[in-house]
C-alpha cells in the first residue's frame, strides 16, 4: 500500500478527496492497524483452542457455565453464560473483551485522523487541497471500518469450526461495537479542540457503557437487565452468538453507529477547520507557574480530575452492587449447589469486591503509564527543550511529572476504594485496603514506563502495551491456557485478594521495591542520554 499509486480522480462536493485521505490514513497506520486487528481478532479466535483444551467434555463445560452464572463477579466481568457449547463459552469469555478492545482501537484511530490532524495544523494544508468538508471524517471512519472488518473476519474465520452462524454473529457484534465507538469518537471530535480531550470523552462513554453492562449483568443472572440494554457494550452480548443468535440486535448496533455518524456529519460541515463547539476560553494574562512541578500539575490536572471522578463513580456503582449481586444465582439448580460450595453469599461478596478492586487497579495502571508518558510527549514535541535549557535540572523536571503519575494513581485508587466502601457499607478497612493494595502493581508498571522512557526513549510507548497486557491477562488470561510463567508476568496476579482471610504481605513489599528500582534505573538513564525526539 503506497501513496504513489495511480491517481484517483477526485469528485467534487463534500466527499472529494476521501480516497486520497483514506490511503494516507492507512499508510500512516500501516503497522498499528494490523497489530490492533491481529491482537483483537486473534485473541478472540484463539479462545476456541484454549477453552477447548481446558474444558474438553460437555459435562465440564456445563459445570463451568453453571459456576460462572452463579458468580456475580464473573457476570460483572464477562456477562452471563448463554450457551455451554464451546462456541458459546468463547462468546461469553471473549465477547465483551473483544468488543471493548475493538472500541478502544476505533476511538483512537478516528480521533487520530480527525481532531489530531486539526490540532497539529496538518489539516489546514490538506484542506487547502481539493478536499471536501466531510472527507476527513469519512476517511477516518473508513479507516476504522477497515480495522473492524478485519477484526470481524478474523473472529468469524477463527471460530467458523464452532458453527458458522455463531462465528459470524460474534464477529459482527465485536466489529459493530468497534464502529459504534468509532462514531462516538467522530462526534466527540466535533466538540473539543483537543485530541486528548476527544479521546478522553469517548473513552468515558465507553467506560460508562461497560459499567452499565457490568451493573446490569451482576444484578441479574439471565442477562436481560434494562441496564445492559442501555449499553452499547451490552448489545454485543445480546446478539447471543452460539446461543440462538438474535440477529436483529445487530440492527441496533448499526443504528447507533449511523445516528452518531449523521450527527457528526452535520456538525463537521458547519464549523471552521480547527474550531470546535466548545471553544477554548482565554487564560490569565499573568502566570503564577514558577516550578517544574507546578507546570506538570497544570498540564495534567484535567486528566487527573477526569480519572478521579470516574474512579469515584465506578467505586460507588460496584460497591452498591456488591451485596445484592452476590445473592443472585439464577434458577439453575446446579448453580445453586455450586454457589453454596463456593462459600455462599459472604464469600462471593468478598470475591466480587476483590475482583472489582483488581479491575480498578489494572485501569489505574493505564492512568499511571499515560501520566509518565506525558513527560515523554513533552520531550518529543520539543516543549521540554527550552525548559531544560533554563536552570532546571532533568531530574527535577522529570520529578514534576512523576509525582503526579505516582501520587495521582494513589489518589484515584483511594477514591475508587472510598466509593466501594461508602456504597457497600460493611468492613470499611478491608474494602478500602482492597483498592489500595493494588498500588504496588500499578507503580511497578509506572516504573517500567519510567525505565523505558529514561533508558530507551524510542521504546517508551511499549509501556502502553505492558499495561494493556496486564489488563488482558487479568481479564481473559485464565481462559487462555497459558503457561503459569506468562500469567505470572502481570504484577497484579501476585497481589493479595482483599477482603479475604489470608493476606500475604511479601509480594506487596517486593513489588514496591521493584517499582522503586525501575524508577531509579529509568531516571539514571534519563540523566545520561540525549534529550530530544
Amino acid at each position, binding site marked *: 500500500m503506497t501513496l504513489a499509486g495511480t491517481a484517483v480522480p477526485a469528485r467534487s462536493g*463534500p466527499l472529494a478527496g476521501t480516497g486520497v485521505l483514506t490511503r494516507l490514513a492507512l499508510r500512516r497506520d500501516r503497522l498499528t492497524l494490523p497489530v490492533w486487528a491481529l491482537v483483537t481478532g486473534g485473541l478472540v479466535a484463539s479462545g476456541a483452542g484454549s477453552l477447548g483444551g481446558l474444558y474438553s467434555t460437555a459435562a465440564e463445560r456445563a459445570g463451568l457455565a453453571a459456576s460462572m452464572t452463579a458468580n456475580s463477579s464473573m457476570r460483572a466481568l464477562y456477562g452471563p453464560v448463554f450457551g455451554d457449547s464451546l462456541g458459546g463459552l468463547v462468546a461469553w469469555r471473549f465477547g465483551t473483551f473483544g468488543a471493548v478492545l475493538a472500541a478502544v482501537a476505533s476511538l483512537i484511530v478516528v480521533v487520530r485522523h480527525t481532531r489530531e490532524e486539526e490540532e*497539529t495544523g496538518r489539516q489546514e494544508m*490538506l484542506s487547502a487541497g*481539493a478536499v471536501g468538508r466531510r472527507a476527513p471524517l469519512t476517511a477516518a471512519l473508513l479507516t476504522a471500518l477497515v480495522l473492524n472488518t478485519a477484526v470481524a473476519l478474523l473472529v468469524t474465520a477463527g471460530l467458523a469450526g464452532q458453527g458458522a452462524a455463531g462465528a459470524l454473529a460474534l464477529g459482527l457484534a465485536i466489529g459493530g461495537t468497534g464502529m459504534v465507538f468509532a462514531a462516538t469518537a467522530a462526534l466527540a471530535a466535533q466538540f473539543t479542540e483537543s485530541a486528548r480531550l476527544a479521546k478522553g470523552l469517548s473513552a468515558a462513554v465507553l467506560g460508562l457503557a461497560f459499567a452499565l453492562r457490568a451493573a446490569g449483568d451482576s444484578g441479574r443472572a439471565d442477562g436481560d437487565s434494562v441496564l445492559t440494554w442501555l449499553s452499547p457494550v451490552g448489545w454485543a452480548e445480546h446478539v447471543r452468538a452460539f446461543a440462538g443468535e438474535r440477529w436483529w440486535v445487530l440492527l441496533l448496533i448499526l443504528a447507533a453507529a449511523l445516528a452518531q455518524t449523521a450527527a457528526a456529519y452535520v456538525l463537521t460541515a458547519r464549523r*471552521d477547520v480547527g474550531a470546535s463547539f466548545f*471553544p477554548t476560553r482565554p487564560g490569565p494574562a499573568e502566570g503564577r507557574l514558577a516550578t517544574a512541578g507546578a507546570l506538570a500539575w497544570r498540564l495534567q490536572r484535567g486528566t487527573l480530575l477526569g480519572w478521579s471522578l470516574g474512579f469515584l463513580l465506578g467505586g460507588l456503582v460496584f460497591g452498591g452492587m456488591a451485596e445484592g449481586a452476590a445473592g443472585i444465582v439464577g434458577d439453575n439448580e446446579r448453580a445453586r449447589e455450586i454457589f453454596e460450595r463456593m462459600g455462599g453469599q459472604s464469600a462471593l461478596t468478598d470475591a466480587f469486591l476483590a475482583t472489582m478492586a483488581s479491575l480498578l487497579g489494572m485501569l489505574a495502571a493505564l492512568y499511571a503509564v499515560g501520566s509518565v508518558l506525558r513527560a515523554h510527549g513533552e520531550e518529543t514535541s520539543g516543549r521540554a527543550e527550552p525548559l531544560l535549557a533554563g536552570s532546571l535540572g532533568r531530574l527535577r523536571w522529570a520529578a514534576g511529572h512523576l509525582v503526579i503519575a505516582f501520587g495521582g494513581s494513589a489518589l484515584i485508587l483511594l477514591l475508587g476504594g472510598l466509593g466501594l466502601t461508602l456504597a457497600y457499607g460493611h468492613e470499611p478497612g478491608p474494602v478500602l485496603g482492597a483498592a489500595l493494595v493494588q498500588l504496588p502493581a500499578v507503580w511497578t508498571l509506572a516504573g517500567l514506563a519510567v525505565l523505558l522512557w529514561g533508558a530507551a526513549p524510542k521504546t517508551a510507548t511499549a509501556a502502553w502495551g505492558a499495561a494493556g497486557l496486564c489488563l488482558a491477562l487479568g481479564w481473559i488470561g485464565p481462559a487462555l491456557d497459558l503457561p503459569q510463567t506468562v500469567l505470572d508476568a502481570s504484577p497484579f496476579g501476585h497481589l493479595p485478594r482483599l477482603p479475604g482471610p489470608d493476606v500475604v504481605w511479601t509480594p506487596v513489599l517486593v513489588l514496591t521495591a521493584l517499582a522503586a528500582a525501575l524508577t531509579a534505573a529509568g531516571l539514571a538513564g534519563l540523566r545520561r542520554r540525549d534529550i530530544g525526539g
Partner: protein
Amino acid sequence: MTKAISVSGLHKSFGRTHALAGLDLTVEAGEVHGFLGPNGAGKSTAIRVLLGLLRPDSGAARLLGRDPWRDAVELHRRIAYVPGDVTLWRNLSGGEVIDLYGRLRGSGRLDGARRAELIERFELDPTKKGRTYSKGNRQKVALVAAFAADVDLLVLDEPTSGLDPLMEEVFQSCVEEARDRGRTVLLSSHILSEVEALCDRISIVRKGRTVESGSLAQLRHLTRTSVTAELAGPPDSLAHLPGVHGFDVRGARVKFQVDTDKLDAVLRSLTASGVRSLTSTPPTLEELFLRHYTDEVAS
C-alpha cells in the same frame, strides 16, 4: 485584467476577539501581491477565509471569481498553499508528502521533471521521514509541493520562515518564474527585502482592517522624507509648517521629517533661510512599514 481575489468588508470574530473587522483586499490576476501587517493583524485569518477553512461572519469574498466557502473543493484544484509553520507526519517521507499534496488537488501526479528540478534547487532530501526534518526543510517540502503544482493562484503565508539566505534566493526566483507563467501570488511576509524584490502591489492590514493598498511607489508617496540641512540663518517658523514632524535644531543644523506631499512647500521655506548643505533621504521600506505598524491610523 480580471481580479484573482476580491474581498470587501470581511468580518470574523472568535469569541470576543475581532480578527477581521472589515478587511478589503483586491489582487489582480497575474500579479504578485504583498500582504503585510504586524503580528495578529488578521493576515492568516484572512488567508484561512480565502481557503474556505473559516466561514466569515459577514462581508464578501471572491476567489478566481467564485465563493471560497461554497466552491472550496473546485477552487482548491487551482490553488497551492504554503503555511508559515509546516507540520509533517512523523512516519511519512518528504517525497510522499509532496506527492500527497499533488494528488489531493485531484490532478493526478505532479510533473515529474518539474518536481525533480525543484527538489534539486531547494536541496531537499525527499527520502527523510517527517520527524527528522528541520524547520527550514519542512518549509521546503511544502514549497516544492506548491511550486511543482500547475495552479492559477499561489497562497503563501510567511513561506520562507526558517530558510537560509541561499534558499531565500531560490524561493524568490521561483516566485518570479510563477509570475512569468501568468500565475497570481498572494505573499504574506515580514521580510521586507523579499517584498520589495517580488511584489507588484502590496496591502497593509492592521487590527483586521486594510490601512493601505497600492504599488510600492504609490505608498512611498504617502510617507515622509527625512531632511537634514545646515542653514545660514535661523529656521524661522519651519517647525510649525504643516507636514513637518520631529523637528530638531542643533546650532545651525536642523533635522526633521516631512510628509512627502508637503515637501515642495517646506523646501521653499527652507531655502528662504539660506541652505549651506542638504541631505534628503526618501523613506526606506522599513520606515514605511514601521509607521503603518505603530501609528494610530486615521481612517
